[in-house]
């Protein structure tokens, strides 16, 4: 359904990351969408300082405007009569990949922007690879700057094929490829009369056709954030990742294995209904008290518990990761010291080509990393339950890389 159609009862919210190579027009496309929608009720007009440079809608820092380049990720919020859209702009520059990830890890869907005059470039590939790691496996491709190709169909079809081939190799399905001139608004909200040969959706319509993702796990998973005692009652707090938790439920504290029973589901004001997936609640338990980092789960369907966690890791920090290095692994509320045991299947994220075996992983490289942990770690495969299947590796409290559990 078009995001501009008539009112529905419960508006879905879609968070869309705009990704792609530097200067291919990500900020300009969001700015143009924002500008064209600003005639609608509830949507403020873009501020006058933008002056027709649509990228400035998103690029609000002085240095971003002076250099005409996005430095930090940013978001804009649009509410139409039928849905809510959050556009997440990210920098295209490779030095700023950490800012790209700060934005993209918040997205449900993505538009990959490709400039017609340059085609697939290093950061197009790298961003696509990262999307696939982050679990965003359907994307919309916007072939921007079609004016530099004379708005001609042949050139567009060649780029459409190249992009589809490259993305398929990463396990990504393209839902629509759209010829666009973001600066002038061609095929952004409305079909462009200047490209009569194109009969597909506009960018906004393609976004309206995206299907929401569903969570496959139904067993309860409750990572413990902490135990509150400030009001005289020991209350275990956290967020239900999957399944539901009701009073009387018997759960196992992972990784320790102790059995506990839910005495009370605590909320304010008081409400004892079963806790739903995604809900932050408190639990008063009977049995041994769990601690931050533990995961509560039903005895019949426990997550993986391992002292040798492993995953596909993308390295961010300038200083390479080396075999033998000790760092902190964080997953849900767990914080565990790990030692890197091996790095295999290294890949260059610029070319997507394999790299020779080695004992170090440089910035922007990927590898399968096997670790030994100081204690047991609770995990799931990423495809089963994303929030327990992804981790960050920290040095000095800052993320130096992230990984996905196969």
């Amino acid at each position, binding site marked *: 359904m078009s995001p501009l159609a008539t009112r529905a009862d419960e508006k879905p919210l879609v968070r869309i990351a705009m990704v792609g190579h530097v200067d291919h027009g990500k900020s300009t496309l969001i700015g143009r969408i924002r500008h064209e929608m600003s005639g609608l009720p*509830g949507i403020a007009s873009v501020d006058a300082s933008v002056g027709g440079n649509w990228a400035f809608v998103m690029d609000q820092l002085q240095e971003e405007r002076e250099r005409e380049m996005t430095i930090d990720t940013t978001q804009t919020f649009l509410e139409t009569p039928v849905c809510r859209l959050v556009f997440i702009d990210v920098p295209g520059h490779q030095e700023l990949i950490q800012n790209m990830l700060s934005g993209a890890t918040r997205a449900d869907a993505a538009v990959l922007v490709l400039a017609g005059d340059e085609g697939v470039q290093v950061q197009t590939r790298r961003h696509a690879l990262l999307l696939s790691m982050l679990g965003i496996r359907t994307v919309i491709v916007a072939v921007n700057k079609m004016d530099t190709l004379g708005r001609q169909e042949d050139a567009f079809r060649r780029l459409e094929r190249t992009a589809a081939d490259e993305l398929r190799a990463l396990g990504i399905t393209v839902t629509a490829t759209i010829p666009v001139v973001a600066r002038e608004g061609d095929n952004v909200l409305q079909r462009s009369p200047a490209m009569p040969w194109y009969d597909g959706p506009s960018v906004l319509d393609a976004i309206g056709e995206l299907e929401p993702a569903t969570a496959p796990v139904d067993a309860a998973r409750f990572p413990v954030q902490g135990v509150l005692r*400030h*009001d005289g009652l020991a209350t275990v707090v956290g967020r239900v990742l999957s399944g539901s938790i009701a009073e009387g439920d018997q759960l196992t504290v992972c990784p320790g294995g102790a059995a506990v029973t839910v005495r009370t589901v605590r909320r*304010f004001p008081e409400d004892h209904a079963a806790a739903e997936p995604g809900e*932050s609640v408190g639990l008063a338990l009977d049995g041994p008290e769990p601690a931050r980092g533990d995961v509560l789960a039903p005895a019949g369907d426990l997550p993986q518990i391992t002292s040798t966690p492993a995953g596909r890791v993308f390295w961010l920090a300038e200083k390479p990761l080396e075999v033998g290095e000790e760092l902190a692994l964080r*997953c849900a509320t767990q914080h565990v010291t790990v030692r890197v045991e091996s790095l295999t299947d290294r890949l260059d994220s610029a070319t997507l080509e394999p790299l020779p075996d080695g004992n170090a992983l440089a910035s922007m490289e990927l590898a399968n990393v096997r670790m030994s942990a100081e204690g047991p770690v609770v995990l799931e495969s990423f495809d089963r339950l994303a929030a327990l299947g992804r981790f*960050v590796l920290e040095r000095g*409290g800052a*993320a130096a890389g992230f990984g996905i559990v196969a």
Partner: protein
Amino acid sequence: MDLLSRMESESIYVIREAYSRYSRVGMLWSMGKDSTALLWLCRKAFFGTIPFPVVHIDTSYKFKEIYEFRDRIAKEWNLDLRIARNEEALADGMGPKKIDKFACCNALKTTALKQAIATMGLEALLLGIRRDEHGVRAKERYFSPRAQDFTWNVGAQPPELWDLYATVDEAAHDRIHPLLHMTELDIWRYVRREGIPVNPLYLAKDGHRYRSIGCSPCCMPIASTAATVDEIVAELESSREPERAGRAQDKENAFTMQKLRSLGYM
């Protein structure tokens, strides 16, 4: 869960993350709709008893309705309220007309906040800012480390992946922003659903109301007939004006907000 409940759970998760990971936490309360919603969320996160101080940075130029609202709610909700003022600057006559608005905000808000953080020894400070308020605030993180001199280096923020919020070792204190994902309309819908008390300045009287409140010399009311929360929601669903249109601070210079924030403004 519906969308407002999902947003509420996300905010409560962030609030409890801050409390679990820092021993000295405080919250900034300006008595506006956002920080009052944040205060409500803190009550929910801690089952009605907020276990940390609630700080009001008092410039002395606030509307009288703001002071009345503060004292009433602080009593009703049994808050550990702390009032922080830059007494030296106030004694020296600082105000929006003394030099300019930038200097005034910096002295009476940022410097007062610095003094409060130092006096109270706070490691983490919860604030009710939202991404959709302003283009510079849109670049914030949920956990945002600040250096000893309070500066915010917006171009070089540490990565924040998913909800694995980082607490960087070298940070002097962390700003925690549990409402980042909520829009102005979300806040009003949440206020309506939860029955959160509303400062009367937001409700239209004689054809005008305040959409954003702060210091009385620097806030202008908008033309409006919205005299109830329901009417505010309906008004915003059809408005085309940006939220901070009545805030003088944003208008002085295109990058005033960026400069204020890089120096530690909220």
